[in-house]
């Protein structure tokens, strides 16, 4: 399987924060979710991929060096950034006119259709849009030139569940239309990823914790709920982190079948991505 993005040892230091040796791939035909707390390094990773910030390490997009072939590569990328877009004193019509001269493959018809589909007015100033409408406009702008790769930074934050679902549906359709496309989506709303992502990359305090297929994560990981005695029987190699609750221990394992067989423990819950993330952040070892 070819990769649309390959990151190798990407590092970046700011005052008080270091992103260290981030390496992962975004294969064609897949949606990769980038998760982590606020300030974990998700946006810095995305900025490094897009060459917005000057990071160390290697970023290859569509098999080309992201710095050397920057303009060529970016013609095939659609971008949604959480806190950044064109000025609020423009209209959706202005955005169309600007983007016609920005992207070689800008598809005006597709953009107008997306505006209709999202119920977005063409002549209203963006400053008068709701946050959901703004995000829909950003997404319409990102996909109207039929990019091979979508990079989305927190596209669903601050949106109500209806709009969030609409956006997730649209992303699903986008990836189904062409198997060479892929999406890198950063979010702290991990429940969104359970339904649409193929891989999860977890970053914590600037370091990569794991890069795993979503299925593997949801099927193999488990939360063992056990007594102190049962917990003391567990080999440290068999679990990742634990939390001491009032009446029991909760233990995160990456191989629940082994735990069942080896320790004869039957109470193992299926965790959500959020549970897993919380264990890694708050759990003890």
């Amino acid at each position: 399987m070819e990769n649309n993005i390959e990151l190798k040892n990407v590092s970046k230091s700011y005052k008080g924060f270091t992103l260290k040796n981030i390496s992962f791939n975004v294969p064609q035909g897949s949606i990769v979710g980038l998760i982590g707390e606020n300030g974990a390094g998700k946006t810095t990773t995305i900025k490094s991929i897009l060459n917005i910030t000057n990071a160390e390490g290697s970023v290859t997009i569509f098999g080309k060096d992201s710095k050397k072939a920057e303009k060529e590569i970016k013609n095939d990328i659609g971008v949604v950034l959480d806190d950044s877009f064109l000025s609020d004193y423009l209209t959706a019509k202005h955005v169309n006119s600007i983007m016609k001269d920005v992207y070689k493959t800008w598809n005006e018809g597709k953009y107008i259709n997306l505006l209709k589909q999202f119920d977005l007015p063409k002549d209203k100033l963006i400053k008068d849009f709701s946050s959901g409408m703004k995000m829909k406009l950003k997404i319409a702008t990102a996909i109207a030139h039929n990019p091979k790769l979508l990079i989305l930074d927190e596209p669903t934050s601050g949106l109500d569940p209806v709009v969030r679902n609409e956006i997730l549906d649209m992303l699903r359709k986008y990836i189904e239309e062409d198997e060479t496309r892929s999406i890198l989506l950063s979010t702290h709303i991990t429940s969104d990823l359970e339904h649409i992502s193929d891989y999860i990359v977890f970053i914590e305090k600037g370091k990569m914790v794991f890069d795993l297929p979503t299925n593997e994560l949801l099927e193999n990981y488990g939360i063992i709920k056990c007594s102190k005695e049962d917990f003391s029987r567990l080999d440290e190699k068999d679990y990742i982190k634990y939390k001491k609750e009032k009446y029991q221990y909760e233990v995160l394992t990456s191989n629940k079948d082994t735990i069942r067989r080896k320790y004869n423990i039957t109470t193992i819950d299926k965790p959500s991505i959020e549970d897993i993330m919380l264990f890694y952040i708050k759990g003890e070892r």
Partner: protein
Amino acid sequence: MIKGLLKKDLYNLSSYKASIIIIVLFCGIAIVGTEAINWGPIIICTIVGMIALSTFNYDEIAKSNKYILALPTNRKEIVKEKYILAIGAVILGGILGILLTIIVANAINYFRPENMININYESLLTTTIGGMWGVSLIQAIQIPSIYKWGAEKGRIQMFVLLFALIVIGAGIGFLIAQANFSIDMEVLIEFINKFGLILLVALMIVMYYVSYKISYKIYKNKEE
């Protein structure tokens, strides 16, 4: 891509349409009132030139720079576009100023033939280019200041730099005066008459070029 960026800035500036019309009308009225026809182009050129730089504020408020860097462009093109806009605004301001002055002066002469205003086109052109040069100097200092310190702080730093330049200029003038150079004023005036305009234009080009190089160097290493 530069065309797209220019469109973005021009659409942003279109919100100034009403303000520019009011300013132009105000300048027209001022010319009628004072008959100081040479001031029209200078005022209009200054206003239009300064309004062009307000696009930095739009970008800063919307945090657009990060988004623009994610589009198929690079930092060189982004800086270049701002200079094209700034220079275009100065030229447009100069042309608008001259046209307005000619229209207003002719209108006055038509309605008040007993007190005709004689337009000295050479003098009008000289003051216009002089005004354009002044605005260019401010822009050439202001644009790198904005790239270095941001749109808000950059404006204050620009005035500090401009003040420093005036002090340096005055200092050099004072030293020359102290050195008791004997300058043949006739030769100097003849030289200015002959080459003054060309020199001003050449200086404008050099100022913009140096300013562009400094701005690009600053922006190349800037974190967004």
